[in-house]
């Protein structure tokens, strides 16, 4: 390279450099000023907006679930409450190794293979942001053990929640129902604005009975805790000033009486059926039992597949509320309705029919249990003579009978607040026309069967209890009331109902006949209360479950295979002279109504009577000389 650089060239080089260096310095300065301008924009002009964004980052509101409302019986005895639940939550993100965490966890708390499989599904199904409750109901030892080892279990946090508990496990399972984990279907059913509390880990909603029907009242309103979180959503600290306290769910008081209900469950033992009792002054439902029952607490925990199948496949169907859904013909209990209809149409109760066990009419024989001989109406009810009522029904025709039956609440869904009632059926000529387009005519030969409560007729235990209570009340078409109050709001009483449009002396006649049933009639051996002056009045009924002829031959009475036997009904009220309580009892495949159902009714009735101070006073006072 040329070694002789001329001075002017050096100077030129230096001058050019200095000009350009100066220019560069200016540009760099301009750049710094531009940065300063951007800082002014961000930090001074828009600072408010960014401070808000920063707070949104920093703070989150964590829902605090409200305590679920209690469910109480009429005397305040707790039927459903809450207890603390030590549990573990897993907050998952894309880095969570679920298998490793579960494997580690299995060493600390007992987790069997089936449980692990179900957990894995639940964790997979859970929305990304919602933590999943992976272990619940831990003992304190397990809980503290896991707490100590928390660093080995990333994403797992221990917490204390609340879980529903049903102290009487089975007795109220059908009425009170149960809560269970929220399913995806539950969330989609509630529409686009599902209550976010549904996503809270371990949150449960009512799935059956009162728990389902009044879920929103019982649920309450979620509160919120203001917590400071880091970028991974871990809670760094809590700001209790920002808390919104949860609104506890409203307590629900039922009209049921725990003593009566529990006794009913005992009395049923292994038998399958239902018992309903109403106060025949107020209409309050004191007892509504379906047997056999199940432990509602199992559903709160979550049933495994085999556990659920065992319940669902048991032939005595513990999962159904038979008081509302087991609809059968009422059998001879319906004779009270036929008799009342007859009296209302001017039938002379002294009229006598002779029963020779068989009565030939319409070209075929019609049977009775035995040859009752000559009977008037009262005797026919007391001894439950079919042949008397075949002929009485024929005098009336179906429409007059149906009209009376409907006035007594048959064929009707009663609004007691909980879902799942079957309306049953009270047939008449219009029904036949509607339901049988190929044979739309009511044949005279169908009327005798209606007269003894068989055929198309179908009723459930609640409806028969309503019928019994209206007979016992005599004045008002009482409505059943199951829910006494929701929070502070008392539900309308069952007495606020229209009057029964029947002559008082006709009802009195039916009542005296029902007294005769227990005194010397079909239930005389089975329905004694043994409470001195306090007597029960009632009516037996046997509902045919299968035809007595044909390939699956039904068994009449308490013989033969269980599933083929007749269903046993008994309706009753007591005291017979001044009715206070009315009830109905169904024993599925129980054989004769008198034998299977009446003793149960008497046992349950005794509890109600002995709890009643008026009645106690009557029992305890010495018999008048």
């Amino acid at each position, binding site marked *: *390279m*040329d*070694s002789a*650089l001329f001075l002017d*060239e*050096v100077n*030129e*080089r*230096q001058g*050019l*450099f*200095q000009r*350009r*260096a*100066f220019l*560069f*310095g200016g540009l*760099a*300065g301009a*750049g*710094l000023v*531009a*940065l*300063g301008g*951007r*800082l*002014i924009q*961000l*930090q*001074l002009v*828009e*600072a408010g*907006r*960014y*401070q808000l*964004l*920063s*707070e949104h*980052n*920093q703070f989150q509101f964590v829902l605090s679930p409200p305590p679920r409302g209690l469910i109480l019986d009429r005397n305040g005895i707790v039927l459903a409450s809450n207890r603390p639940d030590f549990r573990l939550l897993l907050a998952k993100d894309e880095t969570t190794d679920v298998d490793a965490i579960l494997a580690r966890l299995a060493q600390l708390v007992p987790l069997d293979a089936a449980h692990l499989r179900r957990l894995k599904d639940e964790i997979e199904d859970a929305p990304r942001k919602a933590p999943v409750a992976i272990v619940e109901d831990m003992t304190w030892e397990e809980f503290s053990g896991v707490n100590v080892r928390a660093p080995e279990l990333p994403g797992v946090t221990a917490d204390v929640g609340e879980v529903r508990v049903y102290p009487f496990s089975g007795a109220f399972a059908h009425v009170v129902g149960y809560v269970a984990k929220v399913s995806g279907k539950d969330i989609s059913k509630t529409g686009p604005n599902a209550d976010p509390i549904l996503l809270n880990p371990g949150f449960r909603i009512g799935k059956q009975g009162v728990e389902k029907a009044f879920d929103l009242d019982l649920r309450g309103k979620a509160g919120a805790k203001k917590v*400071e*979180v*880091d*970028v*991974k959503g871990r809670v*760094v600290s809590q700001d209790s000033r920002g808390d919104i306290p949860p609104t506890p769910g409203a307590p629900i008081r039922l009209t049921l009486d725990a003593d009566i209900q529990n006794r009913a469950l005992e009395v049923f033992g292994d038998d399958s059926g239902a018992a309903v009792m109403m106060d025949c002054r107020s209409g309050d439902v004191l007892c509504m039992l379906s047997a056999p029952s199940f432990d509602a607490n199992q559903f709160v925990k979550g049933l495994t597949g085999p556990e659920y199948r065992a319940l669902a496949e048991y032939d005595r169907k513990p999962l159904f509320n038979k008081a509302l859904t087991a609809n059968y013909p009422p059998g001879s209990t319906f004779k009270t309705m036929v008799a009342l209809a007859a009296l209302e149409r001017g039938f002379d109760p002294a009229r006598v029919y002779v029963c020779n066990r068989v009565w030939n009419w319409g070209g075929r024989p019609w049977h009775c249990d035995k040859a009752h001989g000559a009977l008037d109406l009262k005797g026919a009810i007391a001894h439950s003579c079919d042949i008397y009522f075949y002929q009485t029904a024929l005098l009336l025709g179906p429409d007059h009978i149906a009209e009376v039956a409907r006035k007594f609440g048959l064929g009707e869904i009663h609004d007691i607040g909980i879902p799942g009632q079957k309306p049953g059926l009270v047939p008449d000529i219009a029904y036949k026309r509607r339901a049988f387009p190929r044979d739309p005519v009511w044949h005279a030969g169908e009327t005798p069967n209606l007269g003894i409560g068989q055929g198309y007729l179908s009723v459930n235990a609640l409806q028969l209890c309503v019928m019994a209570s209206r007979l016992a009340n005599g004045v008002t078409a009482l409505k059943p009331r199951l829910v006494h109050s929701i929070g502070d709001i008392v539900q309308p009483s069952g007495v606020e109902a229209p009057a029964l449009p029947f002559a008082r002396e006709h009802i009195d006649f039916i009542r005296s006949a029902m007294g005769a049933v227990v005194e010397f009639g079909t239930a005389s051996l089975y329905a004694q209360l043994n409470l001195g002056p306090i007597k029960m009045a009632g009516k037996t009924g046997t509902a045919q479950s299968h035809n007595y002829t044909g390939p699956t031959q039904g068994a009449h009475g308490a013989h033969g295979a269980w599933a083929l036997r007749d269903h046993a009904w008994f309706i009753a009220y007591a005291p017979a002279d001044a009715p206070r309580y009315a009830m109905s009892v169904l024993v599925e495949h129980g054989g004769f109504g008198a034998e299977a159902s009446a003793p149960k009714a008497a046992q349950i009735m005794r509890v109600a009577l002995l709890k009643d101070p008026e009645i106690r006073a009557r029992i305890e006072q010495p018999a008048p000389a």
Partner: protein
Amino acid sequence: MTVSAISRPGERDRLIVKLGQIDWTLCLLLTAITGIGAVMLYSIAGASWSPWAARHLILYGVCFVVMIVLATVDLRVWFALAYPIYGVALLMLLAVAVVGHSTMGAQRWLDIGPIRIQPSEIIKVGLVLALARFYHALPADRAKWSWWLLIPAVLIGFPAALVAHQPDLGTAVLIAATGGLMMVLSGLSLRVVGVALAFVAVAVPLAAKFLLKPYQNARLFTFLNPEADRSGAGYHIIQSEIALGSGGLLGKGLGLGTQSQLNFLPEKSTDFIFSSMAEELGFLGCATVLLLYGAVIFVTLRTAAIAYSHFGRLAASGVTITFALCVLINGAMVMGLAPVVGVPMPLLSFGGTVMITMMAGFALVLSVRVHRYSEVTRG
């Protein structure tokens, strides 16, 4: 000490005289910036000296001493070592390309025994030295526009390409821009500069389309529209802007920056340290630091302007350019004005090699000032 005394022959070579000639203003400015950086690193670690603040200060202390020592090294030594340093740095870059250690998907590190070296940082100083050395001997007319300029073009382009291949686009752009600006300062025809700028304006979008890796592309487009991908690539920019904006005028106070303390801010100790500072110290803190940076640029450019030798001028200005570009690119990045590229904030950000190269650069600047009267011989 008087001018007459210093003009005595040999007087300027005395160590004590050299130390007196050191630009202590610059040293003070650098220490102030580093000090603020250390305070921030202490704060965002949750009021803890580890893992960043203590190491930051210790490294600065060591580098500071070395810088002072290097400042007394005669400019002729720098001149003589310019090409060898560049050559070694280039060889190391090649070595990284072959056997480099990979962090976060990019090959940037070279492990030599216990030391971990990032050659892309060393080449910054090496390039400044090599270009200064080259232009020192190049007549002005040739520096304006001639075939000779192919040499600096290769000196710049080769390492830039290697760094881009790592891939470290930010540093590659920084190297290319530093080299380009040094060519301009050396007298490149402004007409050529205009053509080159026009070429870049056309070529960059094309390169973005065909040459960039997906993540580089994503960063680029995310910069253009951060809201499109809030939790993905746009996250860095949005969180950084929130940190800056929420700081307001006075900041949230030391240790109280929620964005950085709760880790919403990514890379809070390195690339986004400025955002952490903006959040906790507010506009006043930021403006102060920007003024300090401006002062450093002013002081170093003045050194370049008063140097007698062309080598000295170019070396000092090259360091200034690197420094200024780092500050501007990082500042623009954290404020959402530029794509997220891995360029740290000099002296504020935590990071060993960056500190070392920056301090080496300032040692060069100091040396230029100490030896500003020296005519570097060519030979």
